[in-house]
C-alpha cells in the first residue's frame, strides 16, 4: 500500500498493465515526450519506447478510429483524448463505430479499447475543457462508462477497463488528479464493473453521486453529520453497467434520496437513476427523489464557474428540503 494521488494511481495502473501485457499501447496528443499535459503518462515513453507510447497528430476522430483498427489487428490500445469535451470531435468514431463493432459483426469481432479522458469543473479552463458528457455516452449502447472518484478506485477500475473486452470510456476528474489522494495497493488488483462503493453509512437520507461530485458530497455529508443529519453516501463508480441492486437497496435503507452530478440537469444521468428508483424503490420512498445538478447551460467561463458547479451548500439545502418533506 502507498499513499497516491489519483494521477499517480493512474500512472501506476498504466505501467503495471503495460508490463503485464505486451499488447497494450498508449496513443494520444502529447502523451509521449511530454508525458501528458497533466503528466498522467509521465515516464512511460522513456521506459516502454516510442512504439508503445505514441504521440499522434492532432486529430481526435482518427485517434479513436485507428485505435479500433489497432485493436482488430491484435493490440490493446488505450487512447487518450486530452479533454472529454474533445471526444465530440471523435463522436461518430466512438458512437457509430467503436460502440457497434460487436453488434455489427454479430459477435465475431470486438474492440478491446479504453479511452482515457479528463473532465470536470472549478479548474479555470477554457471552453470545452470541463464539460461533463457522460449522459451522451451512457445513451450510446455498446460502450461502458467508468467514473472513479478515488485514487484506489482509479487504479483498480483502470486495470479492469483495459482488460474488459468491450470499449470503455474512463473519465478522470481533473480536480481529483492532485487533490484526491488515498491508500492504494501497489500491486495488481481490479475492481469489478457494476458495483457501487459505499463511502459513508447513514440512516436519514441516501446521497447518490459519482466522480467529480464525490468530494463535494462527502463534504456536505460531513457538515450535515455535525448538524445531526445522518447521510448514507454511495459512489456509483460505473454508470454502464450500473449497480441497480446496490442502488435500490441503498435508497430503501433510508427512504429518501438526493442525486448529485456536475452535468446539466435535463437528461443527465441523474434522470436515469431517479427513473430506476421510481420503478424499483417507489414504495420505500418517504419523499420525492431530489436532484442537484448544474443548470441547463454550457459549462461557463471561469469567472462564473463556481456558481455553475454543484457545491456543498446546494447539496445540504437539497437534503434538508427532502427531510422537511413529510
Amino acid at each position, binding site marked *: 500500500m502507498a499513499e497516491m494521488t489519483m494521477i499517480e494511481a493512474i500512472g501506476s495502473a498504466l505501467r503495471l498493465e503495460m508490463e503485464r501485457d505486451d499488447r497494450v499501447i498508449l496513443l494520444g496528443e502529447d502523451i509521449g515526450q511530454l508525458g501528458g499535459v497533466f503528466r498522467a503518462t509521465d515516464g512511460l515513453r522513456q521506459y516502454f519506447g516510442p512504439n508503445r507510447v505514441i504521440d499522434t497528430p492532432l486529430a481526435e476522430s482518427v485517434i479513436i478510429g485507428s485505435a*479500433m483498427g*489497432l485493436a482488430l*489487428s491484435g*493490440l490493446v*490500445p488505450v487512447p487518450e483524448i486530452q479533454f472529454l469535451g474533445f471526444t465530440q470531435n471523435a463522436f461518430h468514431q466512438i458512437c457509430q463505430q467503436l460502440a457497434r463493432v460487436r453488434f455489427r*459483426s*454479430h459477435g465475431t469481432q470486438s474492440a478491446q479499447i479504453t479511452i482515457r479522458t479528463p473532465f470536470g469543473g472549478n479548474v479555470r479552463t477554457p471552453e470545452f475543457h470541463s464539460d461533463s458528457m457522460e449522459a451522451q455516452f451512457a445513451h450510446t449502447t455498446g460502450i461502458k462508462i467508468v467514473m472513479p472518484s478515488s485514487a484506489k478506485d482509479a487504479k483498480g477500475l483502470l486495470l479492469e477497463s483495459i482488460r474488459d473486452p468491450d470499449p470503455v470510456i474512463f473519465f478522470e476528474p481533473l480536480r481529483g488528479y492532485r487533490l484526491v489522494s488515498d491508500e492504494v495497493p501497489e500491486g495488481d488488483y481490479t475492481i469489478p464493473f457494476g458495483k457501487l462503493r459505499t463511502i459513508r453509512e447513514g440512516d436519514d437520507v441516501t446521497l447518490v453521486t459519482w466522480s467529480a461530485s464525490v468530494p463535494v458530497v462527502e463534504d456536505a455529508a460531513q457538515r450535515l453529520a455535525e448538524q445531526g443529519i445522518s447521510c448514507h453516501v454511495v459512489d456509483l463508480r460505473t454508470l454502464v453497467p*450500473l449497480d441497480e441492486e446496490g442502488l435500490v437497496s441503498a435508497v430503501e435503507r433510508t427512504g429518501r434520496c438526493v442525486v448529485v452530478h456536475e452535468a446539466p440537469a435535463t437528461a443527465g444521468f441523474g434522470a436515469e437513476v431517479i427513473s430506476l428508483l421510481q420503478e424499483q424503490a417507489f414504495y420505500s420512498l418517504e419523499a420525492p427523489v431530489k436532484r442537484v445538478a448544474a443548470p441547463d447551460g454550457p459549462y461557463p467561463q471561469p469567472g462564473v464557474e463556481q456558481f455553475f458547479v454543484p457545491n456543498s451548500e446546494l447539496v445540504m439545502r437539497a437534503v434538508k428540503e427532502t427531510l422537511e418533506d413529510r
Partner: protein
Amino acid sequence: MTTFFEPQFKPATCAVEPIQILQTDGSLVDGARPGLSHEQTLEGLRYMKIGRAMDERCWSMQRQGKLGTFAPIVGQEAAIMGSAMALDPARDWLVPQYRELPAQLRHGHPGERIVIYRQGHPAGGVIPDGVKVLPFQVSLAAQLPHAVGLAWGMKLQEQPGVAIVYFGDGASSEGDFHESCNLAGAVGAPVIFFLQNNQWAISTPRATQSATVDLASRAPGYGFPGVSVDGNDLLAVYQVTADAVARGLAGEGPTLIEAHTYRLWAHTTADDPTRYVDPAEKAQWEARDPIDRIERYLENEGVWTPETAKKTNQDVEEYVEDIFAKAAAFPPPEPDEIYSHIYHGPTPALARQRRWHLAD
C-alpha cells in the same frame, strides 16, 4: 490579381493521363506488358462476372420484395477485381465500403452471409474467424481510420501485410478521409487508399464534390504518392495495386489510388438515376465496359474461346446458385437478436429489459 509572392504550389492546369495497359478495344497499349498471366486474368474475369451476376440476381429479388436495399457494382468490376487480385487473403486486410462484393468473396467473405445481410438478417454480419475483412460500412469514410489502424498495427507488431480500404469520390470529401491520410503518412502505415471514382455520389457529380482536378493529387499533401489509373482496365488496376502492395510491404508507407470508372446502374435499389444522369454520357461509359474489354483482350490472346466462355459462364452460374442455396438455408431471425452481441455479456439493465419483454 497580382500578389506579393509567387505561389510554389498551384492547382494542376490539366489532369494527368490515367495509367492504362489495355485500350478500350482490348488491345494492349504500346509497350505495355500485363502483370497477370492468362490464367490469372481468367480468374479475375470469372470474379467480375460473379459480381455482375450477383447484382442481376439481387436486383431482381429486391424488386420482388425478397431482398432489401443494396448497392450494385455494375461498371466497376475491373476496379474492384483488379485491386483484389493484388492481395493475399491470408495476410492482408480488406476494408470495404459497400460496393466491392466480388473482392470480398475472393477474400473469403462467405457470399451467403452477404445475401442474408441484404435480407436484413443480423447473422449476415458474421465475419468467420481468420477472414480478414471488416463488415460493410454505411457511414461513409468511417472505415478509413480503421484500415489505417489495421495497417499500423501490423507494422507495430512486425507482421507482413497491407490493409486496403475502398471508398468513393463522395466519401473522399469526408473529414475521416483527410485525417486518415494524414495519420497514415505520419506513421508510415502500409495502407492502400483505393478510391473508386465512379463519377457519382448518389446524384452529386464528381465536379461538385471538389475543385481539385485529380483526387489522387491530394496524396502528396499527406506525404505519400498518388496514382491515377483507368479503373475499367483490369490489368492496369492490378498493376498499380500490386506496386502499392509492394511499397507497403517494403516499409514505404501508404499509397492513394484513384481508379476512374463509372457507376452504370443506380446508387442503390432505392435510387432513380434517370433523374440526373445524361444518357449520352452513360452510353460513352457503356462502350468502355470492363468485362467486354477483358473478353476482347483474351480473345486476341486466343484464350477466350466459345468453350472457355461456356465453361466460365457455367462456373459463375453454379457459384451464384450455391450462394443463394446456402442463404435460403438460414432460419429467420429470433426476437432475441435485439438483445444479443451488444456487450461481451449483458448489463443488468439489458437483462432486465429482456426478461420483461421476452418473458421466458
